[in-house]
């Protein structure tokens, strides 16, 4: 906005004047956003200030201010526990499995739906596949428990019917991550496919007509039109979800946890709850949660850094 003819200082003063005028004219916009700002200050920024208890030996009667500083004691206490390594490995394993296994399903579903000509059938499949998205985590986990139950679950009934021995799915730590990931596939694939379905609907029919004139079969049309068309959307969404990789759904792991699968279901977020609410060790809990947040941040920033490098600044998160 620099003008060539006026001296810089005058220009600056003018710009400031302009700015003030805009602020004055838009005073009611600030009024409109004030409640939200207040909300963020109270419930988001005030807790950030409270993070300092991660570096204190928190004594409830003394409050945050009265509790003595202990430096990184809470962190070293966490790192020296065997649960630290276990929970970190579990968090990373489950996150990566979710990312890589659950990513392709919605894409495939969308490609299949796009090729379906029968309208009502397509619509039915679509509506039914997003329905599970609305099921709450509590209900979802109780369904998992029921279906995989070694005594009354339908899955084990089927295994018995085929002559196998029943498997105690929920009691086997080795199976925990698979149950976690594949139940997510069941619940979320339809919902996650919406975006791809919409992208595919944007393909101009001319491409298909031209391909049909050239005698391309449906399979070839899918291979050479649908997939290349979908690829950019797939890339962007992959990056977006890679950035969220460590923010694993806490509720589900917490609810699926039982004494038998503990060694596989203990993730960092469940430890935050346990230390904080069950053992009332506020300092340790906050330290663990801060550690999780920092790992997350490092992850998000590095994913974003690499992808924006690779794509020349195009596929950046912000």
């Amino acid at each position, binding site marked *: 906005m620099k003008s060539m003819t006026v001296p810089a200082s005058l220009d600056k003063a003018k710009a400031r004047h302009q700015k003030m005028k*805009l602020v004055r004219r*838009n005073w*009611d*916009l600030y009024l*409109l*956003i004030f409640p*939200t*700002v207040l909300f*963020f200050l109270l*419930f*988001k*920024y005030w*807790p*950030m*200030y*409270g*993070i300092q*208890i991660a570096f204190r030996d928190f004594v409830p009667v003394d409050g*945050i201010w009265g509790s003595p500083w202990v430096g990184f004691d809470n962190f070293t206490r966490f790192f020296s526990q065997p649960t630290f390594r276990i929970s970190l490995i579990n968090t990373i394993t489950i996150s990566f499995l979710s990312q890589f296994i659950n990513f392709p399903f919605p894409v495939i*579903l969308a490609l*299949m739906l796009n*090729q379906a*000509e029968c309208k009502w*059938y397509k619509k*039915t*499949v679509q*509506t*039914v*596949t997003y*329905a599970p998205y*609305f099921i*709450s985590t*509590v*209900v979802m986990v*109780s*369904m998992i428990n029921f*279906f995989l139950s070694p005594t*009354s679950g339908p899955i084990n*009934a089927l295994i018995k019917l085929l002559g196998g021995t029943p498997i105690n799915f929920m009691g086997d730590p080795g199976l925990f991550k698979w149950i976690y990931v594949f139940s997510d596939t*069941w619940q979320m694939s*339809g919902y996650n496919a919406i*975006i791809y379905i*919409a992208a595919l609907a944007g393909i101009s029919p001319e491409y298909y007509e031209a391909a049909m004139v050239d*005698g391309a*079969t*449906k*399979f070839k049309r899918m291979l050479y039109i649908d997939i290349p068309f979908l690829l950019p959307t797939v890339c962007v969404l992959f990056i977006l979800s890679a950035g969220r990789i460590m923010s694993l759904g806490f*509720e589900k792991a*917490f*609810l699926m946890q039982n004494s038998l699968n503990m060694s596989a279901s203990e993730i960092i977020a469940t430890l*935050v*709850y346990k230390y*904080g*609410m069950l053992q009332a060790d*506020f300092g340790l*809990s*906050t330290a663990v*949660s801060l550690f*999780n947040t920092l790992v997350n*941040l490092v992850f998000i920033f590095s994913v974003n850094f690499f992808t924006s490098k690779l794509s020349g600044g195009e596929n950046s998160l912000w």
Partner: protein
Amino acid sequence: MATNKIHHAKADTIFNALNYFLMGIILLIVLYPLWFILIASISDPNLVNLGKVTWWPKGFTTMGYEKVFEYKDVWMGFRNSFFYTVAFTLIATALTVSSGYVISRKDLIGRKALTTFFMICMFFNGGMIPTYMVVSNLKMIDTVWAVIIPNCVWVYNMLIARTFFVTSIPDELLEASQIDGCTNLRFFFTIVVPLSPAIIAVLVLFYAVAQWNSFFDALLYIKSKDLYPLQIHLRNILLMNSVDSAVIGDAAAMDERQRLADMLKFVLIIISCVPMFVVYPFVQKYFVKGVMIGAVKG
């Protein structure tokens, strides 16, 4: 050429058949568990436990549904959840729409700073205990406000709203109304809001689903039973296996009580999902739209 065409027609028929077949399998995999819960809720629980119920209800009974009407805790939870969902959705949508609109205004001084102020909270937060202490300092523990307020605005939704306003409220509209001397507030309430039913519907849906299904805030902050939302009762009954003995107490034998408890679980799953599935068909088109707006980076 002609044989080629026939050949292609044949290839397409095979492709279609395979595609429909696979879609059928997907449909079955998704639908069957839902169908099973439904038929299990009206079947004899003994037969369900023995694995005898597979496709159709067996030993038809509506006892589970009759018993659930006597389950006072559940209905109280239902009522609480309903209240929490309505209150939370109203407040959250109002705050999100208003703040999303403000940060969409290009002539707002401090727009960038405000956006950054909000976005920081997407990546960094105080965590469970510091937030708990704030809620406690504000004397909200064990009140309805603890469930409604602390999670009220999601930055992600605010950004969706901003993107919507940037792309669908033309600048000329604002200019024209400014010439007429219309204030920003009046412009927002009389022009922007009536032009934005789509984004409002999307936000209402997202917030309502989240609040109806949430249990963790209540687990942290609510101590008294008569404030519990439905999901907390569901967790106790479905996952911790603690069914109120007043409801099944008149059944004398132990196995009879367990039978009733098992049956109640299926009924409760169905009942807890009813509100979502009733509302869903009406908002489905907005739902798709919302997912789309959300995918466009603002």
